[in-house]
């Protein structure tokens, strides 16, 4: 059973005094996230990312389509029993201490007193907030508030964690700490749904991504699949004789040309099909060229994202 499945989801906001103006936030979005995945939802501002996440959490009612979490209709208390959520700009009552905050929100998440007493010190320790349990939340920095938000989301030991811009406004050290926690959670088998503009962060942690543009899902797949440049490979090998380079092979020195080893050179292969790629390898081997590696060329997630969102509709 997938952790999350969405089918033909649409949302139209009605605004104005007579609710006559409409804004189409989502149109026919369908996607599935398997258990254990770290899923990144990307898109420019206004693409519908927050609306999609809010529908999954039950904060926004869909206009059409269905959304399910672990087979339960999204937004029902039963579905929310298995999730944790860290909103982008969460606000805790400032008069609570960190420990009181976690007890209060733990109660709301239906966590028993015994479980709270056991988990709260563990979570404060894990999120580097130990020694801050008795400090008023209103004195916390942005990074500490983000970590406290993560702690409250983890109190009920959720199977699916929603993170909305978890590293927004956090310094690099804090970002690293949050990223490490996300990776630890992945290792524990948790499913994570991440909404972020920080593409470098997404690239480092996500196994799957989807890109929304103008309320429509335009791409979905693994980071490796999506960022691979079609049929272009980086070849690392001993120097290739000029005769071969001048022959009619789809082979050329790599534009940057850097190689980790002085004995090795970097080349680029453009093979339209598997047979061409194998022909290149055979010719190189016949010429006693030692091949270190052949890897599909990738572009950065940021470049890929910009290509997708800038592409004509």
């Amino acid at each position, binding site marked *: 059973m997938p952790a999350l499945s969405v089918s033909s989801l649409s949302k139209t*906001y009605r605004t104005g005094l007579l609710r006559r103006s409409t804004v189409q936030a989502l149109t026919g979005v369908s996607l599935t996230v398997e258990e254990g995945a770290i899923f990144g939802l990307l898109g420019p501002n206004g693409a519908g990312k927050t609306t999609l996440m*809010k529908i999954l*959490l*039950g*904060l*926004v*009612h869909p206009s059409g389509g269905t959304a399910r979490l672990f087979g339960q209709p999204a937004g029902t*208390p*039963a579905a*929310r*029993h298995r*999730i944790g*959520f860290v*909103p*982008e*700009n*969460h*606000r*805790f*009552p400032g*008069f*609570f201490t960190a420990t009181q905050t976690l007890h*209060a*929100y*733990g*109660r*709301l*998440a*239906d*966590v*028993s007193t015994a479980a709270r007493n056991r988990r709260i010190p563990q979570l404060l320790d894990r999120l580097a907030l130990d020694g801050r349990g008795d400090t008023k939340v209103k004195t916390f920095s942005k990074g500490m508030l983000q970590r406290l*938000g993560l702690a*409250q989301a983890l109190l009920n030991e959720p199977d699916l964690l*929603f993170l909305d811009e978890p590293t927004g406004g956090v310094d690099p050290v804090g970002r690293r700490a949050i990223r490490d926690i996300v990776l630890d959670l992945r290792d524990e088998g948790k499913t994570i749904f991440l909404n972020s503009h920080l593409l470098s962060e997404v690239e480092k942690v996500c196994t799957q991504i989807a890109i929304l543009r103008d309320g429509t899902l335009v791409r979905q797949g693994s980071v490796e699949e999506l960022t691979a440049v079609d049929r272009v490979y980086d070849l690392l090998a001993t120097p290739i004789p000029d005769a071969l380079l001048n022959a009619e092979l789809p082979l050329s020195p790599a534009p940057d040309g850097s190689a980790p080893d002085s004995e090795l050179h970097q080349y680029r292969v453009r093979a339209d099909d598997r047979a061409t790629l194998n022909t290149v390898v055979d010719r190189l081997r016949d010429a006693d060229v030692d091949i270190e590696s052949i890897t599909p060329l990738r572009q950065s997630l940021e470049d890929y994202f910009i290509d997708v969102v800038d592409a004509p509709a």
Partner: protein
Amino acid sequence: MRPLLGLVLITFRELWARKIVLGLFIVSSLVLLAVAFALNLDVVEGSLAGIRLFGQEAAPEDLGGEDAAPLTLSRVVIAVESVVAGVAYWIGILLALFASASLFPDLQSEGRAELLLSKPIGRVRVLFGHMLGVWSAIGLLATYLLGGVWGIMSLKTGVWNPRFLLSLLLVVGMFAVMYAAVMLMGVWTESTALGLIVSYGLIFVSMVLAAADQIGPTLGPLTSPVFWGLYHTLPNFTEVTKIVSVLAEGEAVDSWYPLVSSLLFGGATYGVAGYWFVQRDF
């Protein structure tokens, strides 16, 4: 049950963190101290022999006035309890509305609503938990003041007037009715100011509606139905004051209609607020 209790506790705690509620608590404590120590009743063989207020002695006959009936111990007790109940009803409710008006808009604000509504608790229960939290905080404050005055006066004089405690329920009940308007405006507009304006406005209109017997016969065929329509649908806050006084005086209530119609208004308003709260997007 645990999430509901959690929400009640958060709301309760949030209200008590406000300085105005702390102020109400301090003022209530001063009233209790004044009743306990500043008001001295000299009781001889079960009858009132003298009254000292802040050390100044006054004969019971002086307090009653020349034409008034003789001032008995029970009349003094009822008078003190009536004054406190009236003040708690008017000033207490106005201040309690002022103190609590921002709670519901705050609950729905960005960053708070998401945290709360993503928990495994339905929206109807969120609304119910919030209402219970506010009512219980105000109820505790009212019990502290009115129950305290009742207890102190009863212990000091031996005159027990249990019907006075019903006025406690009326104070909390009418606060709940007026808070319904605050919540409705909170769901609709997320505006604290508008919630206060509407609830205070309803109280002002109830002063006019309280003169229904005098105003009603003077109205024309078009304005009369409108006036009486408002009388029967809006909360009769001012008229309920009379019920509070009558209860505090230990007498029988002629008509419960103002209270019943006010409670119906509150129930209907909570219903509409609840429907909008469940339907809206956050």
